């Protein structure tokens, strides 16, 4: 188990280095994308590697002349990576609509970079009507056509079905890992799930499916001795998490993250794609049903219901809202989600992050205060 986990850890620590290597090894093309509503299933079906862009670990300099300071670190950091030439392994980029900032980033990206192709997948914002579903299917069909021309391939039904099968293997395995972590906290190192998720969004999906299934097998067979001192059961809710250090800090402060509601977490793993229906329609149907992002509309209360249900199911002691500064959709949802948790008597903590983490000492104090209170 250790060797697989350390592989994921090294990939998550430096996805750019991994993809360069993988590209050389497999000869596959790489397509970058933002957000979990980008249909990476179609990129995989095209024989390319879908590569999720997470922002930057370096200072933001070049992006400053394109984006104001009140734009989030994911958008500014992503642009910085592109402008600095650190994404030069990509053939093209796939932009789902997501939010106001990503929508403008798409324009700025297209006008200031020279990747071979640029696809805007303006997905519907509503996910609860038939016309929105029809429109989503049209958008996905268009993405397929544009990927074909961008990558110079034909994507047949068979390829999409095979891709879907890989993704179902991946998501089934990921959800099993989530279950294992929830029932046996401490079985993995604190940031392992984070590393696995990041790896799963940048690795060749076929290879990742094999690796993650192997990990499930090993983990299922590993008994964990956590009789010592189990920590408080923590759930994290928010968008992306680019600071895996917080998992370790939380563990040292007496809190085990046992579940999450993150875009780079469970929301990506949620739901399999039907293999009985037309494959593109089936991809759309998963999007319509999976745990929803606040930039989309499923109902006025879907997110609070999902959050409280998950917290109860996983016997959560406390929820940490890990919000990226300047992320409007999440910030708008925070007061009502907090209220829903208050009503269910589940304590929560708001933790806002920018591109850099606050000093470790300060973080530790906040986490310790929170876990002590639980």
């Amino acid at each position, binding site marked *: 188990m250790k060797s697989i986990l350390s592989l994921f850890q090294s990939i998550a620590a430096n996805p750019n280095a991994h993809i360069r290597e993988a590209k050389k090894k497999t000869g596959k093309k790489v397509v970058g994308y933002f957000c979990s509503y980008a249909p990476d299933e179609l990129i995989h079906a095209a024989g390319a590697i879908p590569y999720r862009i997470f922002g930057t670990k370096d200072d933001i300099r070049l992006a400053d002349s394109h984006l104001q300071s*009140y734009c989030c670190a994911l958008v500014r950091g992503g642009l910085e990576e592109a402008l600095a030439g650190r994404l030069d392994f990509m053939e093209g980029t796939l932009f789902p609509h997501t939010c*106001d*900032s990503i929508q403008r980033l798409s*324009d700025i990206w297209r*006008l200031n970079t020279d990747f071979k192709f640029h696809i805007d997948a303006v997905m519907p*914002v509503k996910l609860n009507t038939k*016309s929105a579903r029809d429109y989503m299917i049209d958008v996905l069909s268009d993405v397929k056509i544009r990927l074909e021309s961008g990558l110079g391939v034909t994507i047949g039904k068979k390829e999409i079905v095979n891709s879907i099968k890989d993704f179902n293997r991946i998501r089934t395995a990921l959800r099993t890992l989530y279950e294992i972590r929830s029932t046996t906290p401490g079985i993995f190192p604190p940031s392992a799930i984070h590393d696995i998720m990041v790896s799963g969004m940048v690795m060749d999906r076929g290879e990742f499916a094999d690796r993650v299934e192997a990990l499930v097998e090993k983990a299922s067979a590993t008994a964990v001795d956590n009789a010592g001192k189990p920590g408080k059961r923590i759930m994290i809710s928010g968008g992306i998490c680019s600071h895996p250090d917080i998992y370790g800090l939380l563990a040292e402060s007496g809190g085990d993250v046992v579940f999450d509601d993150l875009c780079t977490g469970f929301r990506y793993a949620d739901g399999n794609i039907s293999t009985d229906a037309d494959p593109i329609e089936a991809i759309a149907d998963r999007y319509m049903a999976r745990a929803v992002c606040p930039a989309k509309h499923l109902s*006025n209360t879907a997110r609070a219901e999902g959050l409280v249900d998950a917290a109860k199911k996983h016997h959560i002691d406390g929820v940490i809202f890990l919000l990226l500064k300047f992320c409007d959709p999440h910030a*708008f949802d925070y007061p009502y989600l*907090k209220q829903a948790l208050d009503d269910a008597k589940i304590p929560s903590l708001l933790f806002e992050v920018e591109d850099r983490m606050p000093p470790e000492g300060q973080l530790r104090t906040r986490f310790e205060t929170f876990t002590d209170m639980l």
Partner: protein
Amino acid sequence: MTDEKKASDPRKIKSVRRMKEIMTNYYIGAKTARENGKKVAWITSGGPVEPLIAMDVIPVYPENHGAMIGATKMGVDLCEKAEEMGYSRDLCSYARADIACATINGGPIGGLPEPDFLVCCNNICGTVLKWYEVVARYYNVPLFILDTPFVHGKFTDAAKKYVIQQINEYIEFLENVCGKKADPDRMDEVGRLSVEAQRLWQKVLDAAAHKPAPISAFDAFFHLALIVTLRGTQETVDYYKGLSTEMEERIANNIAMVKNEKYRLLWDNLPVWYRTRWLSEKFASHDACLVADTYTSAWSGVLHLIDEDNFLESMAVAYSSVYINISLDMMIDTLKKMIKKYDADGLVMHSNRSCKPYSLGQYDLSRMVAKQIGIPTLIIEADMVDERSFSESQIETRIDAFMETLKA
């Protein structure tokens, strides 16, 4: 603002008084809707109000309310109240001010009348979706969302089909919440009035192409209220006819909004509501007039896409293509046309913390304008309602420096 100029001042626009009358009556009508057995719908500024008018529903605009809160300088208190409720200071100040206002019936008119239902069109931003979800939960009323896909270069056939389907869903929704059938003849009539009002509004704005400009962007910000809230009514058509005639008279009598107009500037983004007068006077002190803006023309800029004989469907397509719902390379085309039409010497961009879809991309647009047209841009970092984001001394210095380069 110019409406506060002395009555004897020939530069004062006379129609202002009529506008205030209409808006006062409109808000009284909205506040007493319940007693008069009328329904109230809250709707976003870019949303299709025409079906509401045709169904005899009173439309209410939280954004117009936000602008009033800003103009009366009540924004900071309300924004702080929203922050106490847990809303981040980084969120849209219209939304913050309005969400807080509802809980205390505060603000300049003691709060908006409660909605019977909500209509949210995301052609202006994703923020309104989240804002209207908050309102829908607060008042526990139905919410209709008109989802207008963002236009990256081309409005696709799929998007067109999607918005047209939604217009039909919108009418069905209205029939349900109003408990009566829509009247197609009435709808046609409202559609015609809406188109006529948009034409007249554009004519008013076009008057500023004359040198010296008889009207400035700061006046347009004020006279905009009706085309946003009540287009589709005869009253609005009559008002803009009057305003348009007044513009013709001003041109005939060579009345300039800015005495000694020497420099003509184009404004981008929403107004800084609590400083319109200060900004207007500041620029005027440099003999500069903000002759036009990208904001107020949003309500007539897509007129060419509307087909009066197929109003509802063509309206859906047109409203999806408003200035703020199109990509930067499409925006630059509009900007270039406006710079040419109004013969602008410079561009003033309000980088508005509250409005990401309007503001992100301005740096690129300003470079394109410099490169393709050769005129300079001043970028003012501020916020439309939250005065805490306005640094007067810094902005004054920047305006002075910008005007010096223009004069050089």
